[in-house]
């Protein structure tokens, strides 16, 4: 059997337990060697990402056309082979997954807020939801759907949260823009930010004008 690029990629996807990005596949081709048959890997050494993507598209179409029980989907920035939903009752039985583990509506909307407005602090999430979110945040952190991505410069240096790779995988999303209402709700965030920044700058100016000499000396000492 002469190996085609497509076939090798299929083998990679078949063996992978996570989504594979075209870039990662390219690295594999660049680094793979076969000691017994050194010539075998050479033809694929310099495969370009565009060729890989083309092969992935072809594979995806083949799965559809030949009505395989699995399909190739783009998820969390990579590609992954998954079963068709029609087969769910049997696969579920095999994996002994008795009950679907679904998130509660408050968790889902908190995730939506974090996904679309990340990085975001607890206080800002609470401001949108109108209620504190400590319990929900804890659950989402434990489930590895969100993570701490940094600290804000705001007073108290609150932690900032963002969504994880697992979040994209859990919901079968390609990336954040694949989310419902992404464009609308993210655009607003950008507009909001600039308005906030302006307000903060104005405040900072005012504060600078009002600071006593001692205070500014202390500040200088810190920097």
């Amino acid at each position: 059997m002469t190996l085609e690029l497509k076939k090798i990629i299929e083998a990679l996807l078949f063996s992978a337990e996570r989504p594979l990005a075209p870039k990662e596949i390219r690295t594999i081709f660049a680094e793979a060697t076969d000691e017994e048959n050194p010539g075998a890997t050479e033809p694929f050494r310099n495969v370009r990402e565009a060729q890989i993507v083309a092969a992935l598209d072809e594979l995806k179409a083949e799965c559809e056309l030949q009505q395989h029980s699995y399909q190739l989907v783009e998820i969390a920035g990579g590609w992954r082979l998954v079963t068709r939903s029609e087969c769910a009752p049997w696969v579920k039985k095999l994996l002994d997954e008795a009950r679907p583990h679904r998130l509660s509506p408050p968790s889902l909307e908190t995730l939506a807020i974090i996904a679309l407005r990340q990085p975001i602090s607890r206080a800002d999430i609470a401001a949108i939801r109108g209620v504190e979110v400590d319990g929900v945040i804890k659950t989402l952190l434990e489930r590895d759907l969100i993570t701490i991505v940094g600290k804000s410069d705001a007073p108290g240096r609150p932690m900032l949260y963002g969504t994880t790779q697992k979040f994209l995988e859990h919901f079968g999303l390609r990336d954040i823009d694949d989310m419902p209402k992404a464009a609308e709700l993210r655009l607003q965030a950008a507009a909001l930010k600039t308005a906030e920044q302006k307000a903060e700058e104005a405040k900072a100016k005012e504060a600078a004008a009002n600071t006593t000499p001692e205070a500014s000396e202390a500040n200088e000492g810190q920097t």
Partner: protein
Amino acid sequence: MIGKVETLTVESDYKVKLAVFEGPLDLLLYLIKKEEVDIYDIPIERITNQYMEYLTLMQLLNLEVAGEFLVMAATLMYIKSRMLLPVDQQVTDTETEEGEDPRWELIRQLVEYKKFKDAGLQLGRREEQQANIFSRGSAASGIEVDKDVPLAEVSIFDLINAFNDVLKKASAREDFREIMEEKFTVSDKIEEILYTLRDRSEMIFSELFATASSRAEVVVTFLALLELIRLKRLKVLQVEAFGEIRVLKVA
């Protein structure tokens, strides 16, 4: 009616502590949908009265209600009082512009929140679709025990709404009945509900209260239901919005 509820003493051997993750904005959106009113033109008096009624019920049930619910109650009262004044006599505070509708800030907040709530619902639908799709490593990754399973297929406000209806009916009945000194406990009611469901898999919400002879009994029965839901012995379903709630045994 509300005053009467407050004087009611529930013998509770069994404190039901149920954390409510929904906030005051969720309750307002629920009421706006239920009353079929325009979010951009909220009839503030009607919504405020309803809001207070629900809040009282939640407190009566000893639900862990966030402090934000009380803050919102104060905000609603303030808006209501401002709306009662003729426009030329309204105090303009420094933050709002003169002549601005006192409801505006709240409406803006509700509209923005609703967008995220909708985005959350759509995420939920994706999650449902995704639950039928498996990849390699699905088994190995293990299905984690979920501490966050939805409490019910219906929101806590749907349950409180149904509870409110039953409570009203019960008080209407009470007037024509000789009231016996009876004590109900949540644990007794839990036993009773489970006994009723011993050879059936489901019942209708109102059936639970069919034999209740007093408001106290209705309250205790409802608390027992909440506890059984929390313990994952029962779950509740509602096929259409604001429709009949069904109570199902968890297999």
